[in-house]
């Protein structure tokens, strides 16, 4: 059975959930091989984590020559791993960086690239959601090694024991790839809430909050949810840009999306329309988002959310 390369999504060796989702998809296509580009001394811990989700092999690529530069060295490392393993496919998380690595890799290897897949079936045949979620597209790669970037929450992680055989791989990184440098980096402050793109529940606030996000934050916390914001709220300075859900912010696809005080412009819908269940709370009963919802409350979020939060906290006792 052919290998399927999965690029491990991690922060300083801590493996993130989308990696396990990719491993589950990879198992449908062949034998999952995790590719960890990071500090070599974290390789063993990462291998332990991914083999619990079916990784048969774990390629550990020490990032001493890669760290500090933008995507080009990572693309070179993957190119060389493709040459070595002739994989059936390469699966990469659909983050901003993941898509750039994939773009370079596709040109280097003359391979077709599919981005933002929400499902991958044997073939591989991918499913994408396009035009603000109004169309579903199935597609396949017709040349080279299929390179597919996959959105978070596209598959459920599957716990299964893999061999997890560790193999160190040392790519040759060209000087040309080491030209765009990270001069300074400030890790995002931990909010204690789940990551927006990976969360099972997202509660977002918009113009209707009037700048007071407390009801939104508290309601989110009662549900263990991530907090998001519409562009209007971000442009008003009420939340940082990293909270923005929509075309120019994050695309989310949680089990539950709650929009509070958000009218629902097409640009916002593009970022949340594929959520499984959608709830809106808005004073304006004409708000376009009500057309999409499974459940809606016409009312003031400043009254509805605190009362709901209180009831949820009471139920959880």
């Amino acid at each position, binding site marked *: 059975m052919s290998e399927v390369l999965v690029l491990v999504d991690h922060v300083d060796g801590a493996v993130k959930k989308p990696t396990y989702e990719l491993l589950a998809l990879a198992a449908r296509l062949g034998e999952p091989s995790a590719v960890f580009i990071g500090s070599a001394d974290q390789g063993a811990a990462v291998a332990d984590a991914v083999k619990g989700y079916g990784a048969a092999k774990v390629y550990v690529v020490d990032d001493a020559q890669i760290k500090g530069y933008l995507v080009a060295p990572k693309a070179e490392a993957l190119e060389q791993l493709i040459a070595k393993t002739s994989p059936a496919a390469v699966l990469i998380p659909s983050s901003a960086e993941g*898509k*750039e690595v994939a*773009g370079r890799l596709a040109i280097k290897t003359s391979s077709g690239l599919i981005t933002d897949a929400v499902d991958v079936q044997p073939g591989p045949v991918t499913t994408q959601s396009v035009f603000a979620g*109004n*169309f579903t597209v199935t597609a396949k790669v017709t040349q080279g090694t299929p390179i597919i970037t996959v959105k978070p929450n596209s598959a459920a992680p599957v716990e299964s024991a893999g061999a997890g055989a560790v193999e160190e791989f040392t790519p040759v990184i060209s000087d040309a790839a080491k030209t765009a440098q990270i001069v300074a*980096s400030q890790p995002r402050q931990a909010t204690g809430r789940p990551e927006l793109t990976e969360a099972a529940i997202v509660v977002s606030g918009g113009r209707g909050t009037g700048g007071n996000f407390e009801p939104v934050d508290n309601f989110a916390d009662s549900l263990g949810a991530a907090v998001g914001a519409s562009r209007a709220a971000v442009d008003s300075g009420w939340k940082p840009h990293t909270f923005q859900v929509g075309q120019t912010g994050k695309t989310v696809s949680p089990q539950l999306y709650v929009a509070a005080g958000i009218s629902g412009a097409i640009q916002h819908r593009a970022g949340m329309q594929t959520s499984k269940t959608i709830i809106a709370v808005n004073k304006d009963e004409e708000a376009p988002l009500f057309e999409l919802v499974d459940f809606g409350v*016409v009312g003031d979020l400043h009254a509805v959310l605190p009362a709901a939060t209180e009831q949820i906290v009471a139920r959880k006792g």
Partner: protein
Amino acid sequence: MSDPTVDLCSTVGSFACNLANTSECTGGAFGHTAMNIVVCVKYVPDATADRQFQSDNTVDRVGVDGLLSELDEYAVEQSLQIKEKRDGEDVTVTALCVGPEKAVDAVRKSLQMGVDKGVHVVDDAIAGSDAAATSLVLAKAIEKIGPVDLVVCGLASTDAAMSVVPAMLAERLGLPQVTQAAVVETQGDQVRIKRDGDAATEVIGGTMPLVLSVTDQSGEARYPSFKGIMAAKKKPLETLSLSDLGVDAGQVGLSVAWTAVEETAARPPRTAGEIVKDEDGSGATALVEFLASKKFI
């Protein structure tokens, strides 16, 4: 490389002062004296219109009203700002568009906003090209435009929204890419940007020539002024075909795309959900009951 104590705003802000002391960054370090900026602009179906696929599963780019992709306006804006900040230098900004005949509108809008020249690559053979082929045509056009210092792109198109063309273009041109900039500073041949990365806020540095992409956070795009609209009519606008670029028609288009769409289907409309009106707290209770019925609590 990463020093979490660094104040990122001041890092970008003090960039000009830092570079003023380094000899390698004085003007004329490009290998040619004038500075050339190419800004890539895409003509897309209006996102607020009823966007459709054609029977061959390609995006209908003719039957739906189109316009300059909103996200590329920010790329035009930043290109113009870089030029304006380099007062007294010989800077040329060229808007480059690959697309059907109507796509010339995207180039015209860029000219009206203030770019100096327009180049429109139009050829029937291009229709249905995927991102890989599009990046090939863009790369060949950029090589034809001449020695380029900066290729500027938007964050994503508002139709396909893959966000991969800047990376593909950089790979084809053999250039570094500095992407998703929220703040852009240039001095001499140095570029520095600030961006919200996936896990951190970052300052990225690179040396021209390079490919730069900017986000909608980089600054509101200007509207064309009446003067700009009049001036645009006299600006050079060159139309090129694939043969002008030395690209074989067999290298692009739907039939040789590296990916194939099997099926496109309109998403079934969501069935209208239950809407309740909040009266004296009834909304909160109904909301909590709904959440409980769906096992969210």
